[in-house]
């Protein structure tokens, strides 16, 4: 069944306004819902947050009052959508549980995108990044066991393994080496543009989240770990945003943003296991179709081009949350020792990388290492969830007798 969002009618913008009562959504149950439902909520919150900030930025560069007013009208709706989506997260969950879910999103969403990405250079960028968030999951899971005395398998539910990836301390690269080469908007396939926008948005929200919740912790180790991983998430935003062609006009970027929201809501509507949440994805899809229609009109008017020229003729296969264990193990076995140099990748440490390492680490163990050692001391073991056998990298196996 093909679905071309440009050909569909959505809900008229004026009918999209919601009352406070309608925004008072019932949160999901922290212990009894599908972990991938939570992942979809976190993903859509990332997209809506990007929709809001992108629209603000665009408005700051928009000389036309009438268009600024239209941006404001749509943005108000995006803002209500963001509330309706993110408020599905339960207040009963701790910040650290939500953090672990954020990293689960990064792991399974980026893996899926990497597997589906047709362009080898872009695919490499996702494969490189995913091994780092995979490691963050392991570090936070150890913090969780250490301060909340609970095991992360209760959160990830065995769908995602928890073990070392590219060690976090080796992710502190020189900022110059975080910038990638961008795709060429005239030849890149539409799915590549959507992928880049999706991962850029979710990584950006992860960065926002850590930079704001980190200082709310009392425990020094928690404060430090959020700082350290928060710095990496900024590197990730640099990494992924630089994949996007900066030659796109504001109107083209707006069009891509609205199209991507349609794509993701449609994907999640198709794959959602919880009927109540599925209804929300469907409602939001019908709102986005109208946003897309408005963006398409503006694109025609100001860029003088036909939206069909830059967008896919139909929605690509739905973005799906599913386990990626074998895929990740393969990446771990082959790419764990990669780092970046310029806009490319190398397998050995180079001068600029080592200078950066010396400058920020100063020969001391950073929080990402300390948290493992401290948890091992307090809990009697470091925390891992290896459901498919020992770690694929020999040197990262635990050799403790059990």
């Amino acid at each position, binding site marked *: 069944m093909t679905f071309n969002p440009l050909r569909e009618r959505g809900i008229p913008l004026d009918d999209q306004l919601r009352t406070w009562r309608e925004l008072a959504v019932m949160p999901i149950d922290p*212990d009894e819902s599908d972990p991938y439902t939570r992942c979809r909520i976190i993903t859509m919150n990332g997209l809506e947050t990007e929709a809001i900030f992108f629209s603000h930025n665009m408005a700051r560069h928009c000389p036309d009052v009438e268009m600024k007013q239209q941006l404001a009208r749509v943005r108000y709706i995006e803002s209500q959508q963001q509330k309706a989506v993110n408020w599905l997260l339960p207040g009963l969950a701790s910040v650290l549980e939500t953090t672990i879910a954020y990293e689960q999103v990064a792991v399974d969403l980026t893996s899926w995108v990497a597997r589906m990405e047709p362009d080898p250079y872009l695919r490499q960028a996702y494969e490189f990044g995913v091994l780092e968030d995979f490691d963050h999951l392991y570090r936070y899971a150890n913090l969780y066991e250490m*301060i*909340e*005395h609970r095991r992360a398998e209760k959160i990830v539910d065995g769908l995602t393994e928890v073990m070392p990836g590219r060690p976090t301390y080796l992710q502190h690269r020189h900022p110059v080496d975080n910038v990638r080469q961008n795709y060429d908007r005239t030849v890149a396939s539409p799915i590549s543009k959507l992928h880049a926008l999706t991962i850029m948005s979710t990584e950006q929200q992860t960065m926002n989240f850590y930079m704001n919740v980190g200082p709310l912790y009392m425990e020094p180790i928690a404060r430090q770990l959020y700082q350290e991983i928060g710095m990496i998430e900024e590197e990730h935003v640099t990494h992924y945003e630089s994949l996007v062609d900066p030659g796109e006009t504001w109107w083209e970027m707006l069009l891509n943003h609205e199209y991507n929201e349609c794509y993701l809501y449609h994907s999640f509507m198709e794959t959602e296991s919880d009927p109540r949440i599925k209804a929300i994805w469907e409602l939001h899809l019908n709102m986005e179709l109208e946003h897309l229609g408005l963006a398409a009109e503006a694109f025609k008017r100001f860029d003088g081009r036909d939206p069909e020229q830059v967008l896919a003729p139909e929605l690509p296969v739905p973005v799906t949350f599913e386990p990626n264990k074998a895929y990740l193990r393969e990446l771990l076995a082959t790419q764990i020792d990669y780092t970046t140099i310029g806009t490319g990748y190398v397998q050995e440490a180079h001068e600029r990388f080592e200078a950066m390492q010396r400058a920020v680490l100063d020969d001391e163990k950073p929080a990402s290492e300390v948290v493992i050692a401290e948890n091992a*001391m307090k809990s009697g073991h470091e925390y891992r969830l290896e459901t498919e056998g020992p770690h694929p990298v020999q040197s990262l196996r635990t050799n403790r007798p059990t």
Partner: protein
Amino acid sequence: MNARPTDVVAFLVRQHAEIRDLFAEVEASEGSAREEAFHRLVHLLAVHETAEEEIVHPYVRRVVDGGDAIVDDRLREENEAKQLLSDLDEMGPHHPDFLKHLEVLRKDVLMHARAEERYEFIHLTREGDPARLAKMTAAVEAAEKMAPTRPHPGVESATKNVLVGAPMAIMDRARDLIRKVMGEDK
């Protein structure tokens, strides 16, 4: 295999995590395994709440500014949960409505535990005397280790026999024990 936290807050937070996981275990198991898991849940909940009522709440009332109001809120939640726990225990794990009532209790307990962590324990960490907090741990730990209650001889009716002590009885025993441990500096 967890090393024992020495701070009473860390200790109680660990118990919250265990209680939460026990709910899942009761729900997922069946037959005698469910009965057994449910008894562990009843026992842990009973000693946990008793320890808080005997040790933590009175201390918060004494040392924390606004402590009375905070503790009143917590006691309201606790009394509600205790009532639900008693009803559920009375009902037993074989009752057709057991899971429905367990679910209500689970949500109540989870919310209560989070409220303690966020609105009460945070003051203990901030304002509590470290030596005093360490001593409290000893009492909470002793209560947790308390042996399960044995049924009174002579009242071993077939179904009640498996019940190793109603919640109220466990609470009474835990209270005595805690008072003994805390006794010397009362």
